[in-house]
């Protein structure tokens, strides 16, 4: 048995001598758990990451979602089909219009009226959707740049986002939670000077994006933080079901707008940018380019915008004009039934998917023939995208976590529903 005093004397704190260092260059340390979130400024929504770190290195990561769960799917079962729109606004809350459109398309397919939506309404849906896609990407890039200390970029991009949201506010009455789309079309026509305003905003936005491009793309500090960090291979992207800019950054050429065109996307000339390395920088670059492509679509859509109604002419689906409601019993009844009982959707099920801000936004809806869905399941793109983070983080530095997480662009409202 050793003499206890002798044992105590042999304890060495740290490594007293360089010769004692192991072969490995790293300073060996004890691993320790580190909680990031759920209430952490870099955890955008509310997500918790339980990391096992050794020094600055992440050994393993456990990404825990659900802190922003609001029972979207259960709430939807207790609302009429129309009352669900405000809930969809709160899914991906930086691109609410895209959720509105995605949900409306699903219900319209179930109602078998998807081919009867007025053309102008379809164009308007494309326009508001693409504006939302731009605001989605602007938010993502702005926040991520700021987290890398590029505060100027944050202001440049947020300013551009605000121009677009002001325009949507003018259109829908709400800056963020628009609830502008309806089953059968949209609630109201574009405001009178919407198109010229949009053209002007696009011009200014393009300038902002160019400025940001100049500030970041060849910026040594920014590139060092983004290049080669968080690499996802194309095979992994397929295996994990990654879509949207995250999937495309790996070279996976999948965009619902191109591969399964809906609304009138097949009439526009636009490109789908893809990355080659699947790292953070590619995700940044894909988003930057996608905004430019969205602007191309918007400009074409404004030019081609047809005249006509913006809501389907079907009293069983769309609310009649107020003048009719107050003055004729027919429209009064239709209004009453649509509000109190809801649109009667024939029994059946549908999976309908669109290109959301973060990728494939799917709605799987089951109707039992009443005014409410029996089931309304969402495939939130960033839920699948976020799942890959557990695999991505080990081996990175803690500091790399922030841009990597930022470029995945997890939106709590959508991910947790």
């Amino acid at each position, binding site marked *: 048995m050793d003499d206890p005093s002798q044992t105590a004397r042999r304890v060495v704190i740290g490594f007293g001598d360089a010769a004692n260092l192991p072969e490995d260059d790293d300073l060996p340390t004890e691993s320790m758990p580190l909680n990031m979130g759920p209430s952490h400024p870099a955890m955008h929504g509310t997500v918790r990451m339980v990391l096992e770190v050794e020094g600055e290195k992440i050994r393993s990561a456990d990404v825990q979602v659900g802190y922003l769960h609001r029972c979207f799917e259960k709430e939807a079962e207790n609302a009429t089909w129309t009352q669900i729109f405000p809930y969809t606004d709160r899914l991906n809350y930086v691109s609410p219009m895209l959720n509105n459109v995605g949900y409306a398309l699903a219900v319209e397919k179930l109602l078998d009226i998807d081919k009867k939506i007025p053309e102008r309404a379809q164009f308007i849906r494309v326009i508001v959707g693409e504006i939302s896609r731009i605001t989605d990407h602007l938010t993502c890039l702005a926040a991520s740049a700021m987290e890398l200390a590029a505060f100027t970029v944050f202001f440049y991009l947020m300013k551009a986002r605000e121009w677009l949201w002001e325009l949507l506010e003018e259109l829908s009455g709400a800056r963020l939670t628009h609830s502008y789309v309806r089953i059968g079309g949209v609630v109201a026509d574009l405001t009178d000077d919407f198109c010229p305003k949009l053209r002007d905003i696009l011009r200014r936005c393009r300038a902002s994006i160019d400025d940001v491009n100049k500030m970041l793309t060849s910026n040594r500090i920014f590139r060092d933080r983004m290049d080669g960090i968080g690499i996802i291979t194309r095979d992994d992207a397929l295996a994990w079901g990654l879509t949207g800019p995250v999937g495309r950054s790996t070279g996976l050429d999948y965009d619902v707008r191109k591969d399964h065109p809906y609304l009138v996307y097949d009439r526009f000339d636009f490109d789908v940018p893809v990355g080659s390395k699947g790292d953070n920088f590619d995700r940044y670059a894909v988003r930057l380019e996608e905004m430019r492509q969205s602007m191309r679509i918007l400009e074409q859509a404004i030019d081609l915008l047809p005249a006509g109604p913006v809501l389907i002419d079907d009293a*069983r689906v769309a609310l*009649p004009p107020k003048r009719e409601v107050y*003055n004729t019993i027919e429209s*009064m009844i239709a209004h009453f*039934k649509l509000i109190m*009982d809801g649109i009667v959707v024939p029994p059946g099920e549908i999976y309908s998917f669109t290109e959301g801000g973060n990728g494939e936004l799917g709605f799987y809806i089951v109707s039992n023939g009443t005014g409410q869905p029996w089931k309304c399941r969402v495939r939130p793109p960033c839920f699948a995208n976020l799942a890959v983070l557990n695999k991505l983080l080990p081996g990175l530095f803690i500091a790399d976590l922030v841009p990597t997480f930022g470029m995945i662009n997890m939106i709590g409202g959508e991910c947790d529903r």
Partner: protein
Amino acid sequence: MAGDMPVPAGARANVKMVIDGQAYEFPAGLTILEACQRVGIKVPFFCWHPGLSAPAVCRQCLVEIKGFPKPIPSCYTAVADKMEVITNSERVLDVRRQMLEFTLLNHPIDCPICDKAGECMLQKHYFDWDARAARNDGSKVGKAKVVDVGRHIVLDQERCILCTRCIRVCNEVARQQDLVMAFRGDRQLLTTAPGRRLDNPYSLNTVDVCPVGALTAKDFRFSMRAWELWATPSVCPGCATGCNIEIQAARNVVRRLIPRLNPAVNKYWMCDDGRRTYKPLHENRLAAPMIAGAATSWGAALTEAARLLDQARDKSPATLGVVLSAQMTNEDLFAFSRLATECLRTDRVYLVGAPDGWCDDILVSADKNPNTTGAKLIGGPTLRTAADLKRDLEGGVVTALLLVGEAVGPLDSLQTLVAVTAHQDPPVAAAQVALPLAMWAEVDGSFTNRQGKVQRLYAALAPAGQSRPGWETAVRLARALGAAWTYGEAKQVFGEVCAKVTLMSRADWGKPEMPVQLRFANSRG
């Protein structure tokens, strides 16, 4: 409904016919409309009602029959061999729409203020079969909005679509000609017959059958939107007939009682008196257990009640009586009977109840208690009567009483009185201990009607205040008196009743029923 029953293969005297290209076989004598309902083909109607004759005035059920030049009302035409019926051709749908357009032409724009909105057949048919915008922008023919036609009912002549259902209810159910149509064309209106008012004992059935909001019940109108109500099946406690009803309640308050189809008991109807039986549910309820007039906890009250009863039993079981009521459910009656014989060891069990009243040969019984049959079956031949109780109280034969029913005779001579009661009635003041009792709409239970049918009650409301079902109070009293009873729910008590009472041996507790919100019950209109 009978319309949902499958067609039995090889039934007697069948006719072979074709509806919408599909061959069917029906028993002779059926109308085309009934035939369509049996096989699930939807044909709209306003004036037809399964419990009434068919005058074919609304022309909503028109169908085409091959070989007939004009569309034919299906509610009025019997099925026949080799008949070919088309219910959904463009022509049929078009004539129905045109008839509906006539109906809507002068219909007031009242949905927001109309009590029928949400359960209105006009709304439903317009939405299901028409859903087209108005083509007429002219002014509507005005009629009287508020006509006080009877004790319980207000008529809005503008809303009336002239289907005559209410007239037929009066003529065929109540057998009194109270209502008639007057004038013609767009000035035609529903009114009371000369010198009469809509005061027959079944008048409120006219409100139920009214497809629109023309006839509204004074009791219900403007009190609650129909679609906010939750419906629970139950049985009317008004008399021994036991009409099947639906309790329609919202936020723990009953708003109306509606008859529920039972071909063997009440068909589609119930009497006006029965509709008011929900009133005592919300009036003057005893909310908490009382000891000597002061509110207390259940635990303290039960201990005190058990002590008093124990004392009375030990002193002289022959002077200890238990009073049961024919208003109680089978479960309550059984539990308290068992308490009397097993725990209190007395055979002095009295059956009281509401006094007899008026009756007719339609639905109303003279016996105003819903469960006299059940009480007599459970109590057996030794049951004493209300007259016995009165005599025994006056004679001082009974000195201690567990009172679960109505008080008969003077209570002031009693040394011990434990009252289990739903209301703040005189016995509460006289009782040393009063325990609050849940009423028929607040419990799961059963009544046995005058025909011997055991019919289920379902709890539509939470019990008022701290009141508890009677059987549960009996169980707790029994435990306080040292018995080891284990009933945990009414169903167990019911099972034991069925096992003990031969005539109830085949009674069935049935399936659980949840309240259904009328809003999403697919607009019953």
